[in-house]
């Protein structure tokens, strides 16, 4: 398992951790039941504070990607990938809906919105 943290982007470190672990789970590199490092071990190896990793893990747990058992550590959650994907898609849909509405009411063209979305999608690979 590999995580790359950049210290000079505007993206907070906890978000960098969550998005990379999510990507590892969605790509299948991390399988259901796989253990993920303890918060303290990860904080040490990334040279970040424990609270930063804690926040990342809490977000992952809230979104159903991992499960944490006291005394045993954190594991990739049993809920299946399709379900997570569907869930994430629903989330994206609602944001896009909002964007479309803003576009419609303030006269931003569909092409412009598509262009923007393409830009954002390809920007942060």
């Amino acid at each position, binding site marked *: 398992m590999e995580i790359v943290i950049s210290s000079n982007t505007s993206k*907070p470190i906890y978000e960098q951790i969550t998005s990379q672990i999510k990507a590892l789970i969605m790509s299948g590199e991390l399988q259901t039941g796989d253990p993920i490092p303890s918060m*303290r071990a990860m904080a*040490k190896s990334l*040279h*970040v*504070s424990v*609270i930063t990793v804690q926040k990342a893990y809490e977000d992952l747990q809230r979104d159903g990607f991992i499960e944490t058992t006291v005394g045993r550590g954190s594991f990739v959650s049993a809920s299946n990938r399709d379900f997570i994907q569907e869930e994430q898609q629903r989330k994206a849909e609602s944001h896009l809906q909002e964007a479309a509405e803003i576009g419609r009411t303030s006269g931003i063209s569909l092409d412009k919105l598509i262009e923007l979305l393409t830009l954002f999608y390809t920007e942060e690979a």
Partner: protein
Amino acid sequence: MSSAIEVRNLQKSYTGFGLQNVSFCVPQGSIVGLIGENGAGKTTTIKAILNLIDIGGGEISVLGSPNKITKRTREDIGVVFDDICFHENLSVSQLGKVMQGMYKRWDMALFKQYCQRFSLDSKKRVGDLSKGMKMKLSITVALSHQPRLLILDEATSGLDPVMRDEILDVFLDFIQDEQNSVLLSSHITSDLEKVADYIVFIHQGKVIFSLTKDTLLYQYGILRCRTDEFKQIDKDDILAYQKKDFEWEVLVADKEKAAQKYKKCVIDHATIDEIMLLYIKGVQQCEG
């Protein structure tokens, strides 16, 4: 989560200087950074915690024992000050033996292991070590009696970047055990930006803020604007401000909100250094 150190309404007055109602806590398993300019009261606070000075008022509890540091808690605390107070004529290995007699839980193997890790020559006299090496020795001694709590006052100041990184590694190693905690004061805020969980800022004997580091780094921001824009800013949004020759700098607690509200202004990330500077040199609107 219980606290390793809890300071409540600490008072101490000297002529011309004093601590006023200093309160903060060090939760177990965390690293807390104490920042502030020279003479702000950091060392006085640490001395009060260690029961080295009489306090004027308030309560301090360390590792669960209120107010007085007992013999037992003294074993549990590793302390590093900015100057070393070991006897100059002892060699490093002799010092290890002296310390073995002082602490019940002294671990000689651990001491030797740290000496090796920090490349401290065991035959060298303490007096012949450079300032940085003395600091490493001091940290080695503090860690070798297996404390639960490390208290360091300006411990990383005399060290080069490589060594500072190694010391941070040691701290992070230390808190792998959730029972252990670290309180350190430092001028080098970039170190704290890496490892600290909480930041406590002391200015003129008062605590200005005590927050998680992530709140400071990801929510606080510095807004830069022109005079007429400055006049339109809601006073409640301003934590501190400073007028420069060509612009106004304003510290805001929530940069996302500020970015939406004041679209014309530039909003930057705030580093701990910048936050400190604005609070000290700027005008404070309200205390956060």
